[in-house]
Structures are given as C-alpha cells and as structure tokens.
C-alpha cells in the first residue's frame, strides 16, 4: 500500500472528498449558526410588547378591555423589568376630516393652506423614553408631573424636528398640532427601539386624551413597551399578563422575542441535518470508490494472493490484508479530508467575515469515520480475495 502511493491516493480520494464535505459542512453549519446567534439583536432580546388587542365580543361580561390601571407601575413591579412605557396614537383629525398639521405658527383661517408640515403624534407615558432608550439632543423629556397635570408639552423626534425646522428648545418654542399649542421641551436624538419615535411628536397621554379623546379600548391602540434585563424577556412575558390584568390575563396580547437558544438550536439542527445528509451521500460515494478500487486491486493482484496462500497465508489473513489496506486508505483519506474541510471552513469564513466555528470532535472523528467507511467498503473485495483459489490464482 505504501509502495504505491499513487494508487493509495486514488483509493482514498473518495473518502477525502466525502470527509472534506463532512467536515466543511459541519463547520459551516456551526459557523453560520454562530453568526445568526451573534446577529441576534440584544435589543430585540430584551423587549416585551403588550397590547390590549383582543376581541371585545370574546371577553366575558363585566371584563373591561385595556392594559389595566397604571400599566407602567404594574409592569415595573415585575422582576426583571428595567423600564416600561406605554403609547397610543391619538385620533387627531380636525372636525373638517383633514389630518392635523404640526407647525410653529397657528394655522391660518379656515380655507387657507396650512403653513405647517404633516407629522405623526404619539401620546406617550413618561416611562416611554426610558423604555425605548431615548437619547436627548436638546432639552428634556416630560415626567410624571406633566402627565398628572395634563401639561401641554411636547418632545420631538430628531426627524420630526428637522422637518419642522426646529434646531433647539432654548426659547421654549410653541408647536401647534392642528389648532392646539404645545410647548416643545426636548428633542430626542436617537432611540434603540420603536424608531417611529424619531419622526413623531410626543405629548403626555393625559394631554392627548384631554385634547383628542381616549384611545378606543381593545383596538390595539394602547401599547406597552417593556424593557427587560438580558435573558429575562421570556419570564417577564409569562408574568406580565397577570401583573397587568390579574382579573383577565387573556385580554392582553404579549409579544416576547423568540428564545435565542431555541432559535439557534433550531437553525443548527436544520442546517446540520441537511448538511449531514449531504456528507453521508458523499461518504457513500467515497465508499463506492474505495470498494471499486479495492476490487480492481484484488483482481489485479490475484497472482499475489495465490502466492501468499502458497506461502502459508490463511484466508482470514488475506481478507485482513485487504481490509487493512482499505481501512488504511480510508483513515488517511479521513485525515486529509479533515484538513481540507477545516481549510474550507476557514477560507469561507474569511471571505464572509465570519468567526469560524468547528467542533474539535468533528476533526478527531473524521479519520475514524474514514477508516470505518474504508472497512465497510473493503468488505466485499476482501471476501472476494479470501475466496480466491490459490491453485488457479498461481496459474496466471
């Protein structure tokens, strides 16, 4: 076997390819899964959203829809919650049916073109800004004082301020939403979730309700954003229903992020299963290759087999010789394949900018799998070799 490196290499080639695919696919699967895990947003993982969207008709009699009394306070009482804030979109249509305009000047008399621009209005609770991780550019946000006293104040998102043409809040500018004035006390530079914030005018819930009326219950307009500690989202999602609506938890719809571990495992299993099937097919092809080459080798070496039998070799020793050769070339093929496969994973990761992930056990197992494949593939040729009649074999 060692005396004929060319043939040995050819014999092992099938295993080399099979093991290369095997190692490379396993490696790429774990690498890709690792990427998915890394990209899994930390913000998404700590966000729980609660809405009161539920069919009013389905609710038993006497049960009110909605997030319940003071949802912020109730949510903050749940262990693992770091911030909570609710918002709803007020119905700010003017009596004429047109949507309201935000402007720095009061609109002109009816019939004339409004001088402002169209912006969205959000009615938010003071905790909202913490819940979306708002970062301020100017001024301040409103707090429970404004909320409790129905203050006509507003905080603008960066994009909304830009559209209106507001660069600072030092002079307490007054913003008209429709015909209602609000004092702008702050501009939000950035948020980490609910990016609609940046294009909106935020006013206290109490002010919005006084100006435009309360949100219609059960229509999903009332939303609570809950910021949790990392890893607590699942648990908070379970508990917050009861915390908000102990009388009827089913009235709430709670959105929790998918468990990142489940997600990663799922992807891992899907990909690995697929790739494993591919690798097994490749190994099967490799095994057929080894079987074929070994069989040819047996036929070609019939005189040698006869000679060895004449020299006192038993049938089992002849079989063992060919099994050893096929298992050996499988083993070598497995080693080469493991190296090539690992190289493939590294190169692919390099071009993709991924961190290559490869279980060392895969590498360690590869030569053994190769040897096993070689052993199986060599079984039939070895049996043929052992069956060779020495008297006839020597005649050739």
């Amino acid at each position, binding site marked *: 076997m060692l*005396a004929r490196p060319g043939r040995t290499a050819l014999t092992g080639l099938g295993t080399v390819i099979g093991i290369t695919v095997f190692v490379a696919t396993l490696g790429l699967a774990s690498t890709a899964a690792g990427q998915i895990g890394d990209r899994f947003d930390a913000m998404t993982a700590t966000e729980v959203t609660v809405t009161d969207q539920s069919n009013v008709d389905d609710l038993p009699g006497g049960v009110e829809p909605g997030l319940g009394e003071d949802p912020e306070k109730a949510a903050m009482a749940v262990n693992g919650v770091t911030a909570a804030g609710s918002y709803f979109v007020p119905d700010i249509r003017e009596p004429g049916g047109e949507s309201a305009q935000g402007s720095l000047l009061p609109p002109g008399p009816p019939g004339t073109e409004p001088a402002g621009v169209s912006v969205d209005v959000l009615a938010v609770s003071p905790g909202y800004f913490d819940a979306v991780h708002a970062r301020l550019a100017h001024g301040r946000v409103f707090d429970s004082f404004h909320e409790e006293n129905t203050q006509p104040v507003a905080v603008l998102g960066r994009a909304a301020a830009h559209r209106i043409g507001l660069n600072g809040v030092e002079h307490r500018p007054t913003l008209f939403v429709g015909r209602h004035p609000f004092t702008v006390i702050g501009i939000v530079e950035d948020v980490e979730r609910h990016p609609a914030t940046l294009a909106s005018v935020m006013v206290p819930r109490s002010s919005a309700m006084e100006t435009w009326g309360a949100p219609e219950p059960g229509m999903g307009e009332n939303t609570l954003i809950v910021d949790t500690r990392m890893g607590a989202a699942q648990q908070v999602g379970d508990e917050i229903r009861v915390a908000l609506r102990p009388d009827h938890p089913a009235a709430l719809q709670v959105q929790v992020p998918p468990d990142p571990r489940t997600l990663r495992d799922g992807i891992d299993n899907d990909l690995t299963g697929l790739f494993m099937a591919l690798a097994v097919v490749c190994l099967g092809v490799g095994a057929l290759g080894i079987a074929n080459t070994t069989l040819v080798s047996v036929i070609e070496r019939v005189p040698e087999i*006869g*000679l*060895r*039998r*004449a*020299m006192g070799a*038993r049938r089992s020793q002849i079989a063992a010789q060919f099994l050893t050769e096929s298992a050996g070339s499988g083993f070598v093929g497995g080693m080469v394949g493991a190296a090539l496969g690992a190289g493939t994973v590294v190169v692919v990761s390099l071009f993709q900018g991924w961190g290559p992930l490869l279980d060392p056990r895969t590498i360690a197992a590869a030569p053994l799998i190769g040897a096993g494949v070689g052993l199986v593939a060599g079984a039939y040729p070895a049996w043929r070799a052992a069956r060779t009649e020495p*008297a006839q074999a*020597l005649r050739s």
Partner: protein
Amino acid sequence: MTPVIDMRGVSRTFDGPSPVHALRDVDLTIEAGEYVTVVGPSGSGKSTFLNLVGLLDTPTGGTYLIDGIDPADMGERHRSALRGDRIGFVFQSFHLIGHRSALDNTRLSMVYTGVPRAERTARARTALRRVGLSHREHALAATLSGGERQRVAIARALAARPSLLLCDEPTGNLDSTTAASVLSLLDELHADGITLLVVTHDTGVAARGQRTVIIRDGCLSEGSRRCPAAPGPGPPRTGFRCATSCPKPPPACSPVPAGRR
C-alpha cells in the same frame, strides 16, 4: 526415517456432468534428500498432481502424508500452516511482487509461518547469498532479469526451510543459458541435502533428477532410473548427456479398470 512424500492410491476426480479423472491411483514415495522429476505432456494431470503435493488441493481418494502428517482432515487454517511450513514453491512465472525488493520478496515466505520479524531478514539474506544474489537484495523485483527472478524465488522458498522444494517448470520462462544456471543451482541445493520435486515437460530438465516419474492420462508410472553421475557440485551436466546415459524404459501405465478410481 519418515518419507517426505508418501502417496498411497491417491486420485483426484473433478465432479461435473462428465466427471474428469485427473489423477488415478497414484503411489509415490519421496525420501528426504531425493531429487525427483515429474514429466508428462500437457493435460496429463501434472498440474493436478502438483496442486495435491503442494496442499493447494485435496485428493478425492487415497492417502497422502507429508512428513508423516495427514492433511486430509485438517481445516483450511491448519492446512495453510502446514503448506507454509513444509512446502517451498518455485513457479514458472516466478510470482515475485514487482514493486518490492528482492529482500522483501524473500522475506515473504516467512511472514505467515511465525518466524520472528528480526530473524526473517537474517534468513532472507542467507538465502539470497545461497543463490548468489547478495548484491541485488535491494533491487526491485521488477528490475531483475529472468534468471535473477527465479533465483530470488528459489531463495524465497529456501528461506522458510521447507521439507520439500516444489518446482513447477522452473526453467519454463528462461533462455537456455539462464536455465542451465538455475538447474545448476538446483543441483547444488540437492547436494546440500534439499529434497526436490521438479515438475516439467522438458526431458532435459527431467533428466537432472535422480529419479523421473511420468504422468500420462492421470496415471503415474515410476521409472526407477538413476543417473550414474553422482549428484552434487561439479561440472554442469547437460540434460542430454544424462538422458543418454539413462535410457528410459517405456512408461507402464496400465489401463484402469472401469469404475475404479
């Protein structure tokens, strides 16, 4: 002393639609140190005889003892071991492994007979020296000349120290000069006390032996002829000279009665 080969009424029939009686009722005794040649035309049963002697085949009738041991009831395993221990094969087509060195080829005969690894090399070197190929021990078999190959094959057979050197047309693939040197080597081995059985269709080769037995139509007839010339080292004797000094009696193959095997 126990004869090396002791055949009593050995026959070999190949079953089939019309059974072939390849060998019938063969009696042959070869004592240790004898040089016996077997001649016969093609299809006479020579090969069958060779396979039986070499334990590559089992007789369908009669008894065959090698060194007093009866391999008839042995399993494949023990018969293989007996073959490796007692028989040294020399083939017409040499059967060397081409991509191995002469030394490797010589060592092969001891691989399956339990000779310790360290001892194999020493014995292989001795055997190669005996056939005059010490200087070629690292040459690949494929690069050797025909005569050298047959010498390596003989060295391989000798290295295992068999009871019997079984040569099948040892000069069949060699030119006359090389053939003569190989035959001289066999003569020398005979002088050393090696038991030789040479199967050939060449009467010249056959005449080199002390005795020649003839196979014809599956019957073996023993001509008790001896060359007057003493075996051993000396000037090369041509087969022709030997043959003329020992005129052969006609073969005595009595017709076998029908139904007897």
